């Protein structure tokens, strides 16, 4: 088991980068509004991972604090978002985000 490389900062950063990419991908491509919101959550969590990893590897408690607040914010955001999406569903009878484009140019 010794010849396994120890997990280091870069691994965390890579994972967070992937999460970010997935999140953006979801936001841009998914039709369903809920999935889009999930993408947003992914973005935020990518940031969280960064914060935690950094605070682990170069000390300081700030990163942890930050990530806690980000989680809270994400929760609040989700709540508002869902309310709005429901409202959208009431009016447009669908949650297809790409069909919501009455205002343009």
């Amino acid at each position, binding site marked *: 088991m010794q010849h396994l490389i120890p997990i280091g900062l870069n691994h965390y950063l890579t994972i967070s980068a992937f999460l970010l990419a997935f999140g953006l991908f979801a936001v841009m491509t998914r039709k369903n509004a809920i999935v889009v919101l999930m993408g947003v959550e992914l*973005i935020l969590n990518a940031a969280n991972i960064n914060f935690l990893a*950094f605070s682990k590897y*170069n000390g300081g408690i700030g990163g942890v604090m*930050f990530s806690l607040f980000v989680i809270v914010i994400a929760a609040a*955001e989700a709540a508002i978002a869902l*309310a709005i999406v429901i409202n959208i569903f009431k009016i447009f009878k669908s949650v297809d985000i790409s069909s*919501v484009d*009455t*205002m343009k140019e």
Partner: protein
Amino acid sequence: MFELPSGAEIQSIIATLNANIGFFIPEIYLSLLFMLLIVIDLVAKGRKNNLLSISTLIGLAGSIFFIYQQHHLPAGEIFFGMYVLDEFALFFKYFFVLAGMLAVVITMADEQFESEVKSMGEYYALIIAMVIGMIMMASSADLMMIFLSMELVSFSAFILTGYFKRNPRSSEAALKYLVYGAVSSGLMVYGFSLIYGLTAQTNLISISSEFSIHGYDPLLMILATLLILAGFGYKIGAVPFHFWAPDVYEGAPTPITAYLSVASKAAGFALLMRFFYIAVPHGGPVYEDILGINWVSLLILLSVASMIYGNVVALWQKNVKRLLAYSSIAHAGYILLGIIVMDAFGTQATLFYLLSYFLMNFGAFYVVILIANKTGSENLEDYRGLGKQMPLAGAALTVFLISLVGLPPTIGFIGKLMIFSALLAKGSIYLWLALIGIMTSVISLYYYMLIPLNMYLRESPGSEEKSMNPGLIANIIMAVMMFLTIYFGLFFQPLSDFAKYSSPMFGLKLN
């Protein structure tokens, strides 16, 4: 892995909190007001809009008193460098409180609320929440505070934008605003995390000292700066981070549009200046070689793009609200010009421009609301012949638009004058920027003048001479704003001295 703090440390923390609480009174007061409004709404259930709005006005007016008290306090950081109190912050405190009051005023004038919503309950509370959030944006000294306050503003804004629940445009605007805002703030947070990774600090000043002491990895720095810029750019609605703006401004309730286009933009600028002036290393050849990213050039790109794009696309708009939305994008460009100069004069010019923009934009939106009340439309075609039917409104709107173009003797002219003076004071390096500004403002004359053109030069289709008087109070408010627009255009000394007084940040002056 982190050891718990000892009792003594906790004692000292509590002591500091007690000591610093005195610097935080206006925010506390506003938070209490926020709760009070909700309580009032709960108690006096029903459609007592005036009760709520009046109390909001009074409450906000009261807050000015507390803000005024803070002039005596020494400038500096509080709450362990989370928060800062300085002239710069004070300026924006006044700014946002007044903006909130104006928002309330024009909300009272807007008859669309009668038809769209049953109760105004949380509306005013949310406006207060936005005020608090923006005040904190203007005075936060720590990445975390920045993030939190921005989100506070954004969330209230999302809700307010979608406040007309049964109105598809309003809801659509809210959704777009939400998705776009969430993504950009997400990117911003990611950028913050990178900065944190580079410096292990979240306080702006310590970040900058870290940078100046240890230097940094340029590649990561570029990435971080760009991502953070995405967040700020989204707030100030500058090209290419503006895409949400037109739709949201068109869809949102008009008072909210006005409020967003003035206040939250200003908050964004406050943040931008604080962050880029203080945190990110700038200026001076010291950084040029290692930096690899000159954020001034970045902002120049933004501002030029905004001026051109905003003005050019506005030429095509038929909906007045949307037209003003694009014009606000263009104005973001002009304001950025002041930031680019990056000296005390530039800051002063920027703050002054924000003040002038405050006056004329609110004025324009106010008149638009009054007209919409009478005609029920915001389309250019329906403005035909209004000049005869509502003379005062027509005159006022013309004055505001002229001021937006930047012609004397209006405050808008002085704003442009100061911005360009700040540019030219640097010699001829920024002259081309000034030229672009001039050219685009000529272009802007086209579309701004379309409105008076329709109001005066064209006859209304149903050419009956019915006069639509918007009512005494509305007339008075319009007249006052029109008067101020012209008065400050001729005697702008007080405003500009105020801007001058508020330019220093963290108590330290720029050269």
